[in-house]
């Protein structure tokens, strides 16, 4: 902590927190949220994620997307409640009002439309919506805290070319949006309709042409700056990339097999093992390429603390879930006040620690 203050005073750059640390923190917190419908705990997660994001996000375009994700979360809650009111299962409870119900043909027996709407059902639906909103808020916080460019810099050498493609795509999206705006304007200037099939063609052709010109310019610039100069041989690269991707796929399938009780057991551990082996082979095969990295992000005590506190929060939720699962859910049918499990609340509160531990953001946008 003191060195943060000292470096700020002397004006030396404090390296921002490692992107992988931020994403691990967010994913573990989101995993905790996924196990909860208790609005007290979910509210705490929203506050913790929001507090950390607001206090440590840099001033950048990506950071501004945080608000959009929060609004999306609110929309999810609203949609969940509306769906419940219109089509939800009808269980007994405190009836608030009744909407006219629709008689459905017999082959749609499982579906109900309309009928009495209970406070229990609405609260239950809202809490389920809130869970999704909390997960979105965690992802949004990570997105606000780390620009995708910084995250892609952490990709291992074996996946470098894929990372470059993603980077280019990420930076092209805003340019294509600008370009679409320009062409729409130009069409209006010609006194043309902006919508309809003719409108789509008239916009798509110039936008694609300018996107193509831009990508050629980018490719020329990358080539002129030595891209691909000291890469390993193309066939070896292709083989390694294929191995890495197949390995990642294997890992995903394997983890699903391990976690999902319904999946056949032989799908589990062996597939994970083979997948991991493939990934490691792919990465090692290409790591001998001649690229070096400028000021790579470092993993130090702060990163460990960040990962540790979020793991602790998840662990607290898991432990509470084992011993007293009811305290993590919103009690409906009958409706009553949610519990306040002390271990879970303390654990989640711990996850706010990065707002102090992580170095303050560096201004990248303010003139």
């Amino acid at each position, binding site marked *: 902590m003191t060195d943060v203050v000292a470096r700020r005073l002397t004006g030396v750059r404090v390296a921002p927190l490692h992107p992988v640390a931020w994403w691990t923190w967010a994913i573990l917190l989101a995993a905790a949220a996924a196990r909860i419908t208790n609005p007290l705990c979910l509210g705490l997660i929203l506050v913790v994620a929001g507090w950390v994001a607001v206090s440590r996000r840099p001033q950048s375009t990506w950071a501004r997307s945080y608000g959009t994700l929060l609004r999306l979360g609110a929309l999810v809650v609203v949609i969940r409640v509306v769906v419940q009111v219109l089509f939800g299962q009808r269980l007994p409870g405190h009836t608030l009002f009744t909407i006219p119900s629709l008689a459905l043909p017999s082959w749609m027996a499982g579906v109900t439309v309309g009928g009495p709407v209970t406070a229990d059902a609405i609260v239950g639906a809202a809490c389920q919506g809130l869970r999704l909103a909390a997960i979105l808020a965690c992802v949004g916080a990570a997105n606000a805290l780390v620009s995708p460019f910084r995250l892609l810099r952490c990709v291992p050498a074996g996946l470098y070319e894929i990372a470059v493609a993603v980077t280019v795509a990420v930076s092209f999206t805003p340019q294509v949006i600008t370009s679409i705006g320009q062409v729409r304007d130009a069409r209006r200037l010609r006194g043309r309709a902006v919508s309809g099939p003719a409108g789509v063609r008239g916009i798509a052709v110039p936008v694609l042409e300018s996107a193509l010109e831009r990508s050629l310019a980018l490719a020329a610039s990358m080539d002129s*700056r030595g891209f691909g100069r000291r890469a390993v041989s193309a066939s070896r690269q292709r083989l390694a990339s294929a191995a890495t991707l197949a390995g990642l796929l294997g890992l995903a399938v394997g983890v699903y097999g391990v976690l999902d009780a319904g999946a056949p057991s032989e799908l589990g551990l062996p597939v994970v093992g083979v997948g991991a082996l493939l990934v490691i082979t792919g990465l090692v095969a290409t790591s001998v390429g001649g690229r070096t990295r400028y*000021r790579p992000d470092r993993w130090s005590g702060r990163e460990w603390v960040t990962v540790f506190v979020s793991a602790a929060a998840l662990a607290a939720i898991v432990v509470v879930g084992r011993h007293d699962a009811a305290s993590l859910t919103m009690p409906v049918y009958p409706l009553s006040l949610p519990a306040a499990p002390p271990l879970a609340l303390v654990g989640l509160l711990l996850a706010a620690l990065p707002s102090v531990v992580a170095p303050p953001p560096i201004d990248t946008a303010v003139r």
Partner: protein
Amino acid sequence: MIHFENMSVTYPDQDHPALDGVELKIGEGELALVIGPTGAGKSTLLRSINGLVPHFSGGRLTGRVLVEGRSTADHRPRDLADVVGFVGQDPDATFVADIVEDELAYSMENLGLSAPTMRRRVEDILDILNLHPLRQRAIMSLSGGQRQRVAIGAVLTAAPRLLVLDEPTSSLDPISAEEVLAALSRLVHDQGVTIVVAEHRLERIVHAADTIVQVAGAGGGVRAGPPADMLATSPVAPPIVRLAQVAGWDPIPLSVRDARRLAAGLRTTLAAPPDEAPVERGAPGPAVATVRRLSARFGRLLALDGVSLELAAGEVTAVMGRNGAGKTTLLRHLVGLRSPEQGTVTVAGHKPSALRPVEAARLVGLVPQDPASMLSADTVGDECAEADHDASLARGTTRSTLERLMPGLNDEMHPRDLSEGQRLALALAIVLAPAPPLVLLDEPTRGLDYIAKARLTALLRGLAGDGHSVVLATHDVELVADTADRVVVLADGEIITDGPTREVMCHTPGLAPQVARILAPAEWLTVTEVASRLVESGSMS
């Protein structure tokens, strides 16, 4: 340093070579300026230095290009990255990273340099190009001049002995251009870097050049020589050279400072400055458009702040000001692409933003910064036919307008294959076909050579003569001096000056054209008016 030996380039599907029989040597530590008309092959010449031609472009290259002894025939651009730094026309299309520092390091990462070396070079380049305060900034938040310096820095970190730049200042305002050129001249003088640069606006850079390489065009050859000799016979020449030719100065001065020393005699001969305007015109007609207390904002940024303006028929108005001063926003309001949040905009009694596109196009037309964004058809002929259809005009109206602007354009050409000047003429023809009383042009001289600009001047004066009101948003002071009746200067969204061209330009040092700077305090603007006075007074035949 660079040696072209009988080099010829023929692009695929072309019958004639783009460059033929080029013999050229550029020595260590020189600043070589490549000049020539639009489409003459300047870019081809530059791109063949680091092997982008033919490795990237395709086509056939005969002869040899040697760069520090390496032949481009068997070295790809990436193999020359540590010898040649190449900066293209549009810096925005070349960025790979989002933060300045990472962008600077990119080429070194590709070269596999060690971490301490990379760190040292990045710090060096940050200091040399004065980018240090911007090192952690997002590139997209920088101004045009700053971005161009980042693009230059990004190739310099690989420590090339040679820097190649293709029109590095074409989209910059005069001050940002100055910033970039100052950085280049520091590199030549202090770091001993060899620089090859193509530029249309010679007035900005010619005084710093050691050699001029002239590309004749039409598959012709390439000549090189000392700047004064080359410019004396060149079809493209900056105002200072044309003034020297008119006044009979020898040797030809290349900087305003040298010219002023020679100009004492000329100032006496010329006597009083002309009372009449630089170009003949009638009295301004009735107001075509009125803007009252117009304000516009982008988020927290105030783009226009209480702007009031009247635009008269038969008048050419130039809107000037820094990048981001609000010029484009003002034009967008006038043409109805933005509706005013505060204040009013009326064109011929209508609110342009409330009209249907077809109706608006009859009242006001805008040629956008990138004319290509208006064009979507496959041939020039189709483009004209579609324009007639869109604006419900009689068939052939747009085509005959185009014939007036640029005679002899082939109907079968693809719009993307036209030169910048031809593309501008096509877009202008589409805009002019419905005969709108108000015509707006946003930065029309990007990529135009002096010949194309002279044609544009004649054309815009002709429009004003026919009773159109013409508005130009531009950085090009020489074009404004030649063309405009009135200059409006915007700064931070406010009009800070509005007056006759001569008065505004001669009293604002940042906006003064070369002739005004040479002949100050006498208020002369253009070579044409100096020449005609000399003819009148009998000092020149």
